[in-house]
């Protein structure tokens, strides 16, 4: 049998890296006609990256993409669309200001000409009727006016709609996350019908029983590689969870298991699901799949402890941002200023900054956490990403705040720097500082004393001490829908 000849899309040995981060490390994936491929993996496994490669949004640095046995040299968004590759993305990918009909026009480039509205209306309504019978969504409504579930329904219907070029491969990235059970059922049934008619689907979901019952074949990814690939009946719920994690089982002893149930309570917050508490000197991890409410909790903790109008005299919490470019560094400022901005209250008298003290403190922290620069007056952007992140850490640690909130701060930081920062965090925790650490990386979560696992905006599980390990965390993040 000749697999490559038949495959709708065959990605061969794709490697993609963003700076120091290897998003894909030689992934080979083939999708045959009439097949639903389930794709699972924890955060940063490379699912979204392989999706981008298949839909033409990203060209792999190494490796090739072939379709129908023909190797495609210049594969891009348009080439993918011509071959009938469609995608439903995790985040909203419609224009909220346009009506459903107008969005259909945008999605199908060759729908133009006089009377396109009528044609677009017919196409999208037909597709909605097929996928979600009895949906009750008027196609002249603006997408911004729809509920989240309705938007997702429209996106799914949009991907399956046919305007000249029939969809052959539909990629569904977490399509059921905001659909209720009956709508999800309708969609999964449609996926099966579509596949039975010879179409192909790549199905990504964190709800494992959906994957298990809908897919023909399941591909498990981890750290940018495919680690397991079997027909769906070769997996069960437990086996999938195992396959996603167990590669690095032996490293459980990394964390010094300090038990501090006796330390005084410093912060508590009634979040959705389990309530959140923090003790002095604890390192608390927020785990679970990315975007399931961890950042929201950090922001809520921060908002609850700070005032909008006046800076606090003695702030209890400080924040280390995850997205450096967006809300971390002041790009035009020097390293020193970037460092001292959070503690200016302590460094000034009668509204004037004490330049001498600022410099002393800066030099002190430069030595403590080894910011690699000849001069703190250099621009912050002269530093590497990892060192910029260190400056942000120093900014937070130099304040008197007792609690440090961290929003996945180590994204895109090299391993050496990470180890240094971990050391600093442990030292500071030993001195009684509390860290609330949202991380998408399993290695970091394992460093924590206690971990809250999030799912769909709620704290679903709390793991402490020796229970903090990869298997438990993955099991909690993928725990099936209450049946």
């Amino acid at each position: 049998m000749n697999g490559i000849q038949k495959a709708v899309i065959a990605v061969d040995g794709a490697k993609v890296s963003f700076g120091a981060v290897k998003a894909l490390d030689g992934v080979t994936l083939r999708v045959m006609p009439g097949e639903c491929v389930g794709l699972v993996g924890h955060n940063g496994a490379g699912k979204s990256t392989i999706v981008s490669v298949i839909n033409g949004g990203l060209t792999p640095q190494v490796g090739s993409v072939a379709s129908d046995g023909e190797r495609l040299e210049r594969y891009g968004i348009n080439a993918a669309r011509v071959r009938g590759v469609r995608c439903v993305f995790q985040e909203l990918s419609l224009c909220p200001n346009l009506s459903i009909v107008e969005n259909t026009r945008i999605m199908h480039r060759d729908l133009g000409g006089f009377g396109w509205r009528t044609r677009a209306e017919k196409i999208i309504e037909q597709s909605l009727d097929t996928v979600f019978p009895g949906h009750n969504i008027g196609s002249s409504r603006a997408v911004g006016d729809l509920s989240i579930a309705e938007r997702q329904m429209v996106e799914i219907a949009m991907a399956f709609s046919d305007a000249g070029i029939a969809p052959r491969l539909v990629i569904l990235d977490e399509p059921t996350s905001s659909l209720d059970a009956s709508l999800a059922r309708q969609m999964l049934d449609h996926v099966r019908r579509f596949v039975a008619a010879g179409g192909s689907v790549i199905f990504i979901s964190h709800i494992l029983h959906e994957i298990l019952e809908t897919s023909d074949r399941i591909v498990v990814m981890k750290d940018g590689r495919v680690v397991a690939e079997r027909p769906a009946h070769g997996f069960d719920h437990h086996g999938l969870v195992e396959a996603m994690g167990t590669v690095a089982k032996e490293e459980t002893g990394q964390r010094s298991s300090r038990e501090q149930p006796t330390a005084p309570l410093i912060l508590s917050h009634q979040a959705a699901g389990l309530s959140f508490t923090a003790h002095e000197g604890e390192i608390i991890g927020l785990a679970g799949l990315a975007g399931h409410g961890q950042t929201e909790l950090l922001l809520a903790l921060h908002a609850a402890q700070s005032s909008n109008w006046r800076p606090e005299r003695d702030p209890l919490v400080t924040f280390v941002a995850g997205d450096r470019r967006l809300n971390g560094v002041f790009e035009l400022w020097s390293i020193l200023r970037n460092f001292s901005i959070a503690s200016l209250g302590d460094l000034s008298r009668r509204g004037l900054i004490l330049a001498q003290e600022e410099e002393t403190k800066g030099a002190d922290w430069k030595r403590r956490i080894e910011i690699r620069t000849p001069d703190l007056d250099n621009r912050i952007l002269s530093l590497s990403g990892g060192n910029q992140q260190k400056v942000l850490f120093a900014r937070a640690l130099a304040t008197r705040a007792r609690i440090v909130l961290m929003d996945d701060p180590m994204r895109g930081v090299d391993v050496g720097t990470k180890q240094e920062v971990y050391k600093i965090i442990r030292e500071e925790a030993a001195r009684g500082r509390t860290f609330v650490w949202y991380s998408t990386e399993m290695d970091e979560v394992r460093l924590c004393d206690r971990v809250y696992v999030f799912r769909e905006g709620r704290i679903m599980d709390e793991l402490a001490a020796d229970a903090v390990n990869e298997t438990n965390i993955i099991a909690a993040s993928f725990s099936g829908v209450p049946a």
Partner: protein
Amino acid sequence: MTFRLSSDAMRLAIPALSLTLLLAAVFWLQPRAMSYVGLNLLFNLAVPIALATIAQMIVMAVNDLDLSMGTFVSFIACVTATFLRDTPVTGVLILVGAIATYAGLGVVIHLRNLPSIVVTLGMSFVWGGLAVLLLPAPGGQSPDWVRWLMTVKPPLAPMAIVASIIIAAVAHLVVMRSSLGVLIRGIGGNPRSVERAGWSIVAARGAAYGLAGFFAVLAGIALVGLTTSADANIALRYTLLSIAGVILGGGEFIGGRVSPIGAVIGALTLTLAGSFLSFLRISADWQIGAQGAILIIVLAFRLMLNRLEKQEKGR
């Protein structure tokens, strides 16, 4: 299910309501304005403003802002009063070149990822300089056909009203009904999604700017038709008036939410506000301030309704 206005209809209701209120107030103060001639006098200066507002609206639909609108319209007015009258071929070439420049600006802004306000602010000095070169002192004369067009007396309704309706209808067709219009608004709403569907955003942005340039050219020509001569500073107010008109008409600075009909109504409202204040015998010194106050009141009203709408949705 209870009847609910769509958000687009809501968007249009407020400018329409404010225009009606203002018009009623003017008629009450000065009943003689309620005539063919009176209406034309009240509104004829609104025609070029409406065209400039549509131009501004198209730029705002792609999340940009054009700060050169006033000087550009002035420049076009100067070209119309000189070249377009004396050597029509050269005049038309200059106008086409100006539109092409606008389209080029859109491309440059997108490719180099520049802030549109900086680029257009810079261009405003270029247009202003060119206008002064053309007409160092007020002068020139409008071409006869333009003059005829702006003073024509159609049956039933005066020129200003007919022109406003035509402008609104054409702009609505182009921006709200055509594929290009959908694409332009789509860029304002979610550029990634447009890109993922395989469109060229550069081309669409260039087209949006080109279209805006076209409407701004029409604004300049219409203005000269009314004033019969031009001057390098004739339309400086248009930059802010056009922005205010778009916002007043239910448009928003970002998100591709615009309404051409609303924009024309907004331009009419702004013009009428000036007349209204004159009828109230408010001294010229206070008029600009009072005009600002009217603007603030209408916008505050809109924000209030937006908030109500959001609360309703939140429930």
